[in-house]
Each structure stands twice: as C-alpha cells, then as structure tokens.
C-alpha cells in the first residue's frame, strides 16, 4: 500500500505539473501537443546536468541546478512551438508533432554522444544517482518534486484567477479579438502561456524519471506521459484544482503498473502492459462520457491574425 501511495504521488505530481503547463498554454489559445517532447527535452537536460556536475557539489545545489536546467530547457524548447504557431501561424498540431519527433531524436543524439565521450559506447541509457531528491516521511519515501509540485499548483491557481496576467491570458484563449480591442497584446500573452507550459513541462519530465529510476533509456522518451497529461488537463476541465484531482486519479492506474506484482493484483495474472495501458483506456472512457460538456478555451488552436477582424 505504501508503495502504491509512493508511485501515485510520483506520477500524480508529474501529470499535474505537465497538465498545468498545458492548461496555461491552452488558456492563452495555443494547443500544446508538444508536451511529450518538452518533457523529454527537460528530462534529458536535467539528467545530463545531474550526471555532469562534479561530485563535490552540495546536494541542494545539485538538485536545484538539475531542476533549473530541466525547466529552462523545456522553456527554450517550447519557444519553438510559440514561434511556429504564434508568429508564423503554423498548424499547432503539426508543429507540436514535429517537436515531439524532434525531441526524442535530439535527446538520443545528445545522450549517445555523452556516453560515447565517457567510454565509447553507443548506449541510449543514462544512469544517475537520485538519492539527493528523496526524503523519507514516516514509512513513505517522497521526493522533492512533491513539494515543488504542490507549491506550483497553488501558484498556478493564484496566477490564473487572482492576477491581471491570468485574466488577460484567459481572455486571449477565449476571445483574442476582444482582448486585442482593449489593448492586450495577444501575441505576447500567447508567448507567455506557451513558455510557462514549457517551464512546467520541463520540470515534469525530470520529475517523471528521477524519483522512480536510477537508469533511463531515452529510446522510450517519457512513454506517453505528456499525452496522458493532455487527457488529465481535459478531464480537469482546464482548472488547476480539478487537474490535481484528475492527475491523482490517473496516477493510480499508472502506479499499478509498477507495483502490481507485489500486491494482491498479481493473482489476476495480468501483464505489466495491461496496467500500462489502463490510464490510456481510462482516459478514453472518461472523455467519451464527458465530451459533451467540455469547456475548452474557445479560441484554442486558431492562430490569431491581427489583420483578420
């Protein structure tokens, strides 16, 4: 049971962080299907920094620097989406897909390159020590991302609902012409929304890998977590509080895949893949039932053109 809670918290926070990222991007009016790729890039950057830092560095800085570089890498990578979809008015879905393809390729090239430098191997795997990220509270091992995630959740909710920035951001995703007519720079707000999603997505990528493993094969990317986060965002109706709940709900399924064989579930004799499949299946079933009352931002997906009124 403690194991279930442990993994649920790990995956729940990841899904929440990334879904919050998607939430900012979509509230500004840009569909961010590149979250998967952003996670990969964030994870890759964070891990490379982690393994390259000299061992003399104190634990705090090691953690801080790797998380900061994951966030920064995600942010920079998301700028590619912002540029294509906001300035060049590209199809957001295609642009996002391209970035997903690109992310895995770049990560593999860089990781292999790094390993090559170490010992001439062409391995796509990175091994790392994650001890600095973990703490124990009573019987449960938790990781630093739990705290970061909860803080960011509160911040996200406040920013969206209590600040001028949040009000303007949401106006751009709902009715950019209206926002423009009262002097809000739609392009700027959308850039902000996408960059925030990159920031959160980058952290999410690292948060997915570091606490639960000590070696990671970048050939699998982040195995669909970014896409799952999109489902979490939809299920959470683009609202931070609900996104948190939805993320935890999906995380339970995902966690089961990791621990099923050590619980009563092993009697069911299902394979790991079936548990891996469950969150995706669950998201489809839920979407099928909730699709009618979707509250997606109205203008999402449509490039905003100042000239077209």
């Amino acid at each position: 049971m403690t194991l279930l809670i442990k993994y649920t918290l790990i995956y729940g926070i990841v899904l929440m962080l990334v879904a919050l990222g998607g939430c900012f991007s979509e509230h500004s009016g840009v569909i961010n299907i590149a979250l998967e790729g952003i996670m990969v890039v964030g994870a890759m950057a964070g891990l490379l920094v982690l393994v390259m830092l000299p061992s003399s560095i104190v634990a705090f800085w090691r953690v801080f620097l790797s998380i900061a570089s994951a966030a920064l890498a995600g942010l920079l990578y998301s700028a590619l989406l912002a540029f294509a979809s906001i300035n060049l008015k590209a199809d957001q879905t295609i642009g996002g897909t391209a970035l997903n393809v690109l992310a895995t390729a770049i990560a593999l090239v860089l990781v292999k390159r790094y390993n090559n430098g170490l010992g001439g191997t062409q391995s796509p795997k990175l091994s790392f020590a994650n001890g600095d990220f973990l703490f124990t509270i009573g019987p449960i091992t938790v990781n630093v991302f739990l705290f970061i995630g909860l803080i960011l959740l509160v911040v996200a909710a406040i920013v969206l609902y209590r600040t001028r920035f949040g009000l303007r951001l949401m106006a751009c995703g709902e009715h950019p012409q209206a926002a423009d007519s009262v002097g809000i720079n739609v392009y700027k707000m959308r850039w902000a929304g996408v960059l925030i999603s990159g920031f959160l997505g980058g952290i999410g990528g690292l948060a997915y890998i570091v606490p639960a493993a000590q070696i990671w094969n970048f050939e699998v990317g982040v195995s669909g977590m970014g896409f799952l986060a999109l489902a979490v965002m939809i299920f959470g109706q683009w609202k931070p509080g609900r996104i948190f709940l939805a993320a935890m709900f999906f995380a339970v399924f995902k966690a089961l895949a990791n621990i099923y064989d050590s619980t009563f579930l092993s009697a069911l004799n299902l394979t790991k893949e079936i548990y891996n499949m469950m969150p995706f299946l669950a998201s489809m079933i839920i979407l099928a039932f909730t699709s009618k009352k979707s509250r997606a931002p109205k203008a999402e997906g449509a490039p905003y053109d100042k000239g077209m009124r």
Partner: protein
Amino acid sequence: MKKKNTSPLLERTKGGLTSVIAALICIVIGLIFGLVFLFILDAEHAWKEGFVPIIQAGFRNVGNETLKKVGMNWATVGQEIVEAAPLIMTGLSVAFAFKTGLFNIGAAGQYTVGAFGGLFCAIVLHLPWWACLLVATLFGALWGAIPGLFKAYLNINEVITSIMFNWIGLYAVNTLIYNRGNGVMYNLKQSQTYALKDVSPRSLIPSKLFGWDMYGTFKYGSISIAIFLAILVAVVILVILNKTTFGYELKACGHNASAAKYAGINEKRSIVLAMVIAGALAGFGAGLYYLAGGAQWDPQNSTALPSAGFDGISVALLASLNPVGCIFSGLFISHLSTGGAQMTQIYFPSEIADVVSGIIIYLCAFSSLFKGKILSLLSRPAKAKEKATEQTAKEKEGNEQ
C-alpha cells in the same frame, strides 16, 4: 469574361510546381540545420563522416570495390527501398485523412496493430502472404475506425483519441506477442517474433516480379515487390480522391463540413470511412514491411511507438498531401534514415537523421507561408491581369467586410 482565359492545366502545374519547390526548401533548410548540428557535435568529422554519408545514404556503397566483388554493392539501396514501402503507406494514410480534414496522428498505432494482424496470420496460421497482408490491412482499418467513431458520434477530437489508441494498441500488441515469454509468436531464443522465412515462407511477400528476381539484383534479404504494391496503392488513392464521387464527398467534408452536410453528404459516415481507410493504409504499410521480413517484432524493446507512423506525417506534408508525391517523399525519408545509419557511429549517432526529419516536419507546418510567396513569384506576369479582374469583381460586390 465568360471564356476561360487561362488554361486549367497550366494552373494545376503551377500549383504542383509550387509544392515541389516548397518541399525542396523544407528539405534544404532541414539539411542545413542537420549540418550545423553535426558541426556543433564534432566539427572535425562533420563533413566527411557525417554529412556526406547522410546525403549518399544507400548509394554510398554502390561504388565500393570490395562489395562489388561479392555483388553486394546495391544492398543498402535495396534497404532504402524496403524501408520506403511502409513510409509511403503511412504517408498516404496521413495524407488521405488530411484531405477529409482529419489529422491522423494515429498511423503509428494503426501500423502497430496491422503488424500484429499480419504477423499472427503468418506465424500462427501460416496463411499465404496476400491473405496476411489483407488481415494486416483490416487490423489497421479497425484501429483507424475507433478515432473516426469517436469523432463522428462523440465529437472528440481525433488527435487525442488517436494518441491514446496509439499507446493502447502498442501495449496490447506487446502483451499479446510476449505474454511473459509464452506468446505463440514469440521466439524466446531471439527474444522477438519468429522469422517468417523459418516458420512460414509462404507468408513472405515474393521478391520476383514478372520473372525479375529483385533479390538477385539487390542482394538485400527482405527486398520484395512491396514497393510496387505501395506505388500501386498510391495511384489508386490518387484516383479515388480525384476521380470518384467518394473522393468528392470526402474532400468536401474536409474543406467545409457544413456545406457537405447541406449537400446531403453524410459527414459522419465520411469521417468514419476516411479514418477506416487511413487506418487500412497504415496497416497495409505494416504488412508490407513485416511480411517482407523487414524486421521481427521485439515486444520487450518496442516500448516506443514505431517511427514509421510519425514519419508518415513528414512524408505526407512533404508531398503536399499528393498521393503520388508520397511515393517520392517516402523514398526520400527512407534515404535520409538510411543515411543516418551510414554515418560513422562513433562520431555521430544515426538519430541525427531523425533530427533532420523532425526539422522538416516543423518547417512543413508553416510551409504554406512560403508557398504563397513562391506562387506569387511564379505568376508575376499574369498578376496584373488577375488584379484587374479581381478589382471589377470586388467593386461589383462593394461589400464592406
């Protein structure tokens, strides 16, 4: 003005030419970025061990004297051809859905499920190759139908459904094949599915075409008539889209779903059918690859979706959604990834080819931006005249908006 003053054929060629130029621009920019990337990674070897092999790709060995002696110098070209067939098909799959206004990001899942169907019929049922291919197609069609149904009847965006069912398909196929090592199709010794040539040779797509033994020419193991089947299908798709009432209906839905509905076209049916066909094309592509012995499925290591599905997006976009164009762009993408493997791997990982291909899709996403520019360059002389007619037309209307 009632008389046609411009030949429609000329207009069409101009449109086609624009698309080709736009594609070439995407490719060139993509390659330049790739080159820059190579230089950043290792400037010393970037050109000779990196860029040149990417460009030469399969043709790098054609002039190799050692290989010539054993007749193997065309083998990597054969490999390019083998890998191109599934790419052409997934490209067609994406392009076909696009024509109906749907983004089939699910080609990867349809491909996966199709591969399973084909391999099952081959390894377990020992059916002849054409039957296996048919089943692969049907499995792909089934997997394509799901997002179509979700879209048509629940109004859930096909992109999100396709993505979810990509993963569902992947996990399902892996668990069915592996089944903790007990799967009937799973060869524990090789930790992948049984090789068709060992367990069911008649399920292999033949390599002889009208007496021409393709294997004899290329000396590449899994060379087969698959590429010709892919080309044939591309032509069929072209005909369906441009010459039939069915294609007319699908394209009408893609351009303007409301108008299609007004015209009495059943747009729900069109959506589902378009996705079924798109899925079938992807499944067929998987059949062409796995039934030619191009690879065996490794359920333990295949924890990421097959890249053929996503490469299909590049193929389709690069071809400007033209089915025949997909043949060429499919061959190109295959050339590129073969090129990636031709680089000296101690310096450069083969994924650099994927980086280039990713950049190309990224560029394709806004290629319409420079398409307009190219078109205006191409039609500069005719422009003055057009403007004049446009002006009279607009003045007549005098509409403020």
